[in-house]
C-alpha cells in the first residue's frame, strides 16, 4: 500500500526533484471518482476511468501550475503543489458530500486461504496491483528512453534540453504517471472500507517510505513501503508489551523513527542516488 | 627553507589511482607549477593539500605542521588559500561580500556580538572592510564592488576568486588553472597580477595550468605528472625538453 503511494512520489521526484505534496489530493480524487462511477459501470471500468481521469487532471495541473515554474527552486514548486493540494481537496471534498462513500470493490472483506492463513482478498489485490505497477514501470524505464530522460531533466534541465529531450513532455508524463499511481492507491485504500474526506492523511505515510528507500529509486520505494508497513505492524503488536514507555500508538510514528535511524547510517536512503560534488 | 613538503602521497577512488606516489617541496617565495594531462591528478593534489580529500598514505607538512587529517577550515586557518578550476564563488553575493568571506578567519567575534553589532563586531567589520578595499584596489575591482558576482564576466569572476584567496592573507597560494577560459588580454592581466603578488607579497604559489606559455614564462620549477605518477621535476627549460613530458602531455605541437 505504502509502496504504491511511494511510487507516485518517486516518479515525480525522479523527473523534477520535487516532492509533490498534491499527491494526497490526487489519491482522494481517484477514490471519489470511483465512488461515483462504480454503481453505473462496475468497479473495474470505474477504476480504469478514474485512473485515466486523474492522470488527465495531473497533466492539466502540471501544465497550468507547474510548467511555468520550471527552473525555479524546487521548494517553491513544492509549496505550489501544496497549494494545489488544498485546492483539489476542497473541490473533491465538496463531491464527497455528507455520507461516507463506497468504491464498490468486488473483494469486500472476503478472505482466501493461503498457506493455511486467511488473507483478505483486498490485500492480495493491493499486492497484485503493486507488483503490476512496479513491473510496468520497470519495463517502461527499461525499454523507453524516458527513464533516462527523466533523471537527466531532473539534474540539469538546460543540458537535457540541449540533448533534444523535450523536458516539458517528460514532466507531463511523469505527472500523469505519478498522479495515476496516486489514484490507484486511493481506490485501493477505499476498497474494503469507505471513502471520506480524511483518507488523504494516509498518503503522508509514504514520505518516510520514499526517504527510506531513496527519493529517486523505484525499487527503493517498494522496499521502503514494505519495510514501513511491516515495522508499523510489528511495533503495533509488540510495543505495548515490550516497550510501554514509548507511549500509546507509537506505531503510527514508527515510520519516522525508522526513517531517522536509516538515514543516520545511509544519508541517501537505501538506494538513492548520491549527489556528486567535486571541485 | 621549505614552506610545503609533500611526501609520497597516494590517493585512489574506487580503483582509480588519482595520485600515485607524488612528492615535492615548495620553497620560500617560490612559484612552483604542476602540469600534466587531464585527469593526471593535479586538482586532486590541491584537494589533498586543502583537506578536501584524505590520501590513503603519505605526508603533507606545511610550515612544519602535518596537515593530513585536518579539516579544510583548519588548514585554511594555517594559511593555505586556493582558487578553483571552475569558479567557486558565492554567486548570489556581491564582490565585496565574497572578499569579506575571505577574511572570515581574520574577523573573530561571536554570534551575540554580531547581533548587537557594537564594539568588537563593528570594529572587526570595519577593519576587514579596509583590508578588502586594499585588495579591490590591487586587483582593480573597484567598478564591480557592489555587484553580484554571478552576473560578472568570467574573467572578472576569476579575479574575484583570486582576491578572495588573497583576502585570507595566506602563506601559500594554490592556483588551479587561473587563466582557463580567458582570452589573451585577460590572461596577460592575470600574469601581471601573479607577478605582482610575488613581487609585493613574496608569496609562494603553486600553479596548475594548461597554458604552457604562462607556465613556462612564470614558473621557477615545474612538476609534471601523468596518471598520478610524477614524470619529472625541474626548471621550465628541462621540462619542455623532457621526452616523457612531451609524449604524455605537450604533444608534438609545442
Amino acid at each position, binding site marked *: 500500500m505504502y509502496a504504491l503511494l511511494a511510487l507516485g512520489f518517486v516518479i515525480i521526484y525522479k523527473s523534477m526533484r520535487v516532492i509533490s505534496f498534491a499527491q494526497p489530493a490526487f489519491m482522494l480524487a481517484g477514490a471519489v471518482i470511483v465512488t461515483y462511477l462504480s454503481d453505473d459501470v462496475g468497479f473495474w471500468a470505474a477504476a480504469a476511468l478514474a485512473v485515466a481521469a486523474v492522470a488527465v487532471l495531473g497533466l492539466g495541473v502540471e501544465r497550468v501550475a507547474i510548467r511555468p515554474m520550471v527552473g525555479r527552486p524546487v521548494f517553491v514548486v513544492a509549496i505550489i503543489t501544496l497549494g494545489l493540494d488544498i485546492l483539489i481537496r476542497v473541490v473533491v471534498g465538496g463531491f464527497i458530500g455528507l455520507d461516507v462513500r463506497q468504491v464498490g470493490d468486488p473483494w469486500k472483506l472476503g478472505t482466501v486461504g493461503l498457506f493455511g492463513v486467511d488473507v483478505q482478498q483486498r490485500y492480495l489485490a493491493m499486492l497484485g496491483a503493486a507488483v503490476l505497477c512496479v513491473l510496468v514501470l520497470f519495463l517502461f524505464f527499461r525499454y523507453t*528512453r524516458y527513464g*533516462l*530522460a527523466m*533523471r*537527466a531533466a531532473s*539534474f*540539469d*534541465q*538546460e*543540458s537535457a*534540453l*540541449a*540533448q*533534444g*529531450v*523535450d*523536458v*516539458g513532455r517528460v514532466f507531463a508524463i511523469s505527472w500523469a504517471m505519478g498522479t495515476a499511481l496516486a489514484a490507484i492507491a486511493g481506490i485501493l485504500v477505499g476498497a474494503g472500507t469507505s471513502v471520506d474526506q480524511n483518507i488523504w492523511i494516509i498518503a503522508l505515510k509514504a514520505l518516510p517510505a520514499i526517504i527510506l528507500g531513496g527519493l529517486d529509486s523505484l525499487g527503493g520505494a517498494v522496499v521502503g513501503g514494505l519495510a514501513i508497513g511491516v515495522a508499523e505492524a510489528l511495533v503495533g503488536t509488540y510495543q505495548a508489551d515490550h516497550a510501554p514507555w514509548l507511549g500509546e500508538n507509537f506505531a503510527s510514528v514508527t515510520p519516522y523513527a525508522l526513517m531517522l535511524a536509516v538515514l543516520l547510517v545511509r544519508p541517501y536512503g537505501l538506494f538513492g*542516488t548520491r*549527489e*556528486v*560534488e*567535486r571541485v | 627553507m621549505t614552506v610545503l613538503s609533500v611526501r609520497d602521497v597516494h590517493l585512489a577512488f574506487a580503483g*582509480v589511482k588519482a595520485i600515485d606516489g607524488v612528492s615535492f617541496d615548495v620553497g620560500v617565495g617560490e612559484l612552483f607549477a604542476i*602540469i*600534466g*594531462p*587531464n*585527469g*593526471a591528478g593535479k*586538482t586532486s593534489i590541491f584537494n589533498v593539500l586543502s583537506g578536501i580529500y584524505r590520501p590513503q598514505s603519505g605526508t603533507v607538512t606545511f610550515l612544519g605542521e602535518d596537515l593530513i587529517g585536518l579539516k579544510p577550515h583548519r588548514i585554511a586557518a594555517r594559511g593555505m588559500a586556493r582558487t578553483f*578550476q*571552475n569558479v567557486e564563488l558565492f554567486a548570489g553575493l556581491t564582490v565585496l561580500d565574497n572578499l569579506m568571506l575571505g577574511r572570515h578567519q581574520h574577523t573573530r567575534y561571536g554570534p551575540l556580538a554580531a547581533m548587537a553589532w557594537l564594539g568588537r563586531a563593528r570594529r572587526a567589520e570595519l577593519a576587514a572592510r579596509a583590508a578588502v578595499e586594499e585588495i579591490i584596489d590591487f586587483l582593480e575591482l573597484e567598478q564591480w564592488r557592489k555587484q553580484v558576482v554571478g552576473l560578472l*564576466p*568570467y574573467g572578472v569572476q576569476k579575479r574575484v576568486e583570486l582576491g578572495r584567496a588573497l583576502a585570507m592573507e595566506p602563506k601559500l597560494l594554490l592556483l588551479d*588553472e587561473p587563466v*582557463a*577560459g*580567458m*582570452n*589573451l*588580454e*585577460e590572461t*596577460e*592581466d592575470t*600574469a*601581471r597580477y601573479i*607577478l605582482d603578488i610575488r613581487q609585493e607579497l613574496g608569496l609562494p604559489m603553486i600553479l596548475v595550468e*594548461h597554458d*604552457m*606559455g*604562462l607556465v613556462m*614564462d*612564470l614558473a621557477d620549477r615545474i612538476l609534471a605528472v601523468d596518471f598520478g605518477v610524477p614524470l619529472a621535476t625541474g626548471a621550465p627549460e628541462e621540462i619542455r625538453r623532457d621526452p616523457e613530458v612531451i609524449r*604524455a*602531455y*605537450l*604533444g*608534438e*605541437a609545442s
Partner: protein
Amino acid sequence: MLAVRNLEVVYHDVVLVLRGISLQVPRHRIVALLGANGAGKTTLLRAVSGLLDVHDGKITKGRVELGDRRIDGLPPARIVRNGVRQVMEGRRIFAELSVEENLRLGGHTAAKAIGANLTRVYDLFPVLRDRRSGTAGYLSGGEQQMLAVGRALMSDPELLLLDEPSLGLAPRLVQQIKEIIVEINDQGTTVLLVEQNAAMALDIADHGYVLENGRIVMDRPAAELLADDDIREFYLGLGAEGAARSFRDVKHYKRRKRWLS
C-alpha cells in the same frame, strides 16, 4: 546551411546583448567565432539552439534560418531533431549519471542508431570506453569535455555548435580535439566553433568572425584573419615581429583596443 540575420537578443527584458548580428555557416565548413569574454558568443549559440528561454532571454529582432527553414522560436527539442546540436560551455554533463548513460541520453533523438554511435564515440575517445560505467561527475575536466562532445555526436548532428571546447584541456588534448573537430567535419558535420584559443580555431576554420560587444566587427576568411595585425596582437599574442611575447614582459598599464564603439 545556417544563416543568422540581423539578430537582436535581450535578457530579462532589459539587457541587450546581441545588437544586430548577421552570420553564415556554409554546409560542411568550419566557421570560427572569436571574441572577448562577454561579447555574446554563447548568447548567439543559445539563440540558434533555442536555449535562450531557460535564461530568460528573447530574440527581439532578426531571424535564424537552417537551410530554408526558419528555426528561431522552435523548441530546443525540435531544433535538435533538425540536426543542430550545441555543446554547452562548461561541459554540463550529468554528473550523477554514468558515462554511458550520458552518451545514451545524447542519442535521445536518434534512438535507433545508439549502438553504432556509441562505438563511433568510443573509438574517437577511448578514455570514455574505459570509464563507461563510472560516474561522470568524477571524471577530470578534460574527460568531461570529451564526454560532452561525444554526447553531442550521439545524435548524428548536421550542425555542431561548439562552445569553447578547448577550455581547460591539456595541450596535447587541445591538439586532439582539434583533430577530432576536423575529423567530424570531414565526416560531413558542419561546425560553428566558438573559441578563446584563437590560434587553434583559426588553424582549422575556413572562415572567421570577430564579435565585440554584441556586434560583428570582422568577417573574413580564416587565413586573412591569421594575417591581420590586430588579430595577431590581441588574439594570438604575437608581437609585431611575429615572435611570441613573454608573459614576464606584460606591461603594467591597461591596454585595451576596441574596433568600434
